[in-house]
């Protein structure tokens, strides 16, 4: 039973590879190389910090772009190209299909990020610092970035189930930005002292996935530790939210006529 989403996932991964999505790694590698070489000349004394900031931000940004752009066409492309027709005539439930597509994209992102992590380590090494205990936070920051990808991918998949890639992109980016600003929105609402506004902003805060939870890039750059409790809680939050969004996607997709 688990083999079916697995097969879909592997195929989705294969599609990404053959679509040359992984070529973005070349861009990342060039970026890291350029940064390692130039950083010593423009920022004295904080080269390690700059490399970590730049590397983690690039990993986050590139991955987000991938998650969104591939995510929004996960389902809609299969519908548009009609590849889904013969697939769903096989003994595969629609939720298994969704789970497989999701897992496939997530796998792609994880592999991509793994390569980038190696690149980042290489850049740090080149800049001359031996690896210290504080670098563990970098790995935690990357883990948090992966959690972020997991959430964004799920949201993109949800939108992919019923709207065109263009609209889905807008919606997903909208959700992401709202999630990043969720805390600010809530604070603004609290300050406004208007009960209605406060209610709305509170609702938004709890409704939208709070992406600001995942930003520990600054901590990683300064080599500060991130508590294990935070890691655990964020993992749980992500898991719950992803399941929630995928359930929504299943609900939407299960009743949909495929034109």
């Amino acid at each position, binding site marked *: 039973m688990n083999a079916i989403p697995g097969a879909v996932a592997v195929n989705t991964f294969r599609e990404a590879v053959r679509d040359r999505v992984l070529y973005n790694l070349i861009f990342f590698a060039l970026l890291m190389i350029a940064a390692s070489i130039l950083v010593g000349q423009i920022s004295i004394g904080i080269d390690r910090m700059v490399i970590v900031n730049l590397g983690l931000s690039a990993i986050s940004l590139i991955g987000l772009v991938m998650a969104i752009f591939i995510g929004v066409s996960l389902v809609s492309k299969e519908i548009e190209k009609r590849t889904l027709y013969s697939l769903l005539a096989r003994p595969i439930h629609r939720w298994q299909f969704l789970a497989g597509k999701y897992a496939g994209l997530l796998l792609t992102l994880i592999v991509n990020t793994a390569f980038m992590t190696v690149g980042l380590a290489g850049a740090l090494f080149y800049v001359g610092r031996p690896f210290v205990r504080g670098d563990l936070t970098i790995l935690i920051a990357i883990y948090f970035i992966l959690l972020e990808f997991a959430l964004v991918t799920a949201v993109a998949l949800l939108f992919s189930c019923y709207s065109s890639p263009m609209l889905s992109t807008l919606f997903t980016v909208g959700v992401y930005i709202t999630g990043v600003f969720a805390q600010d929105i809530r604070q603004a609402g609290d300050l406004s002292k208007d009960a209605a506004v406060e209610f709305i902003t509170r609702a938004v805060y709890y409704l939208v996935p709070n*992406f600001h939870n995942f930003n520990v890039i600054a901590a990683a750059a300064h080599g500060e530790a991130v508590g294990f409790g935070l890691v655990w809680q964020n993992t749980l939050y992500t898991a719950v939210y992803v399941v929630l969004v995928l359930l929504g996607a299943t609900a939407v997709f299960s009743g949909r006529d495929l034109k």
Partner: protein
Amino acid sequence: MRWVALCAIPVFFCAAAVLQRQIDVRAATLSEANEELILRSPEAIRKLSLGYDALLGDIYWTRAVQYYGREMNEPRPDFHLLWPLLDVTTTLDPRLEVAYHFGAIFLSETGSIGAGRTDLAIKLVKKGVAANPNIWQLGTDLGFLYYWRLKDYPNATAAYLEASRVPNAPPWIKAMAARVAQTGGSIETSQMIWGQIYDSTKDATIKKRAKEELQGLRAQEDMIQLGKLADQYKQRVGRYPASEEDLRAAGLLPGIAVDPAGFPYEFDSDGKPRLNSKTTFQMPKEPKVFSAPAARTESSPSEQIQGTRVQ
């Protein structure tokens, strides 16, 4: 047709490059290349960074350093953007210690090497202390500002005491607090403070500044000492010494003391020591409110700068 197109492309590229240069010339004469900070509000910038604030902080820090470097080379330097740049930097990344450090020194520097705004420097460093209560170096920066720039010894003492309470703070901070409280603006205290700055910073610009200050302090110290010796000479011989040679001949000096540039000191007619007229050494422009040096403690790299005084 394809070849025609391929050959035409480089031609058009050259034309574009030529036009670009002309535009640059025209734009430059339009207004002096003005560096401006379009967005001033640090909070707004932080919000716009969409979570990538640490990276943006690094970028602004780089801008600040390059801005400083550029302005230094201007005939009439004006560091009015230094404060906004550092303010934005530290709002984006409140843990960027070196930015507070840099601001402490160069926001308060006067003359052609700083913005001359000690108030802003203090504001910046206080922000740093508030955001990073466990970084004692920021507390000592605050102490430095009160001590060196404002001659506000009570506040300086308070700042050093506060810094000394940080866990892992080295013991010399407490000693510094005590010394400032006791002896105020002594050369010794100042040497300790600048010595600490020199030893602890990795930033080359700050290090250079500290070195200049230490050299200036050493020269002052030398001259005070020479002044005393000149008085002794007068008492013995009846007149002021004409040069250090006189002092040496009288057995008051074991050798010839030189300034940090290697030139011997001179005396004016009243027996006041001064810098050699041919010396290349320039005294840092700070008002001098000092009394006699007290006894020395252990050596540190900064002490090496002060070097051997005897040739």
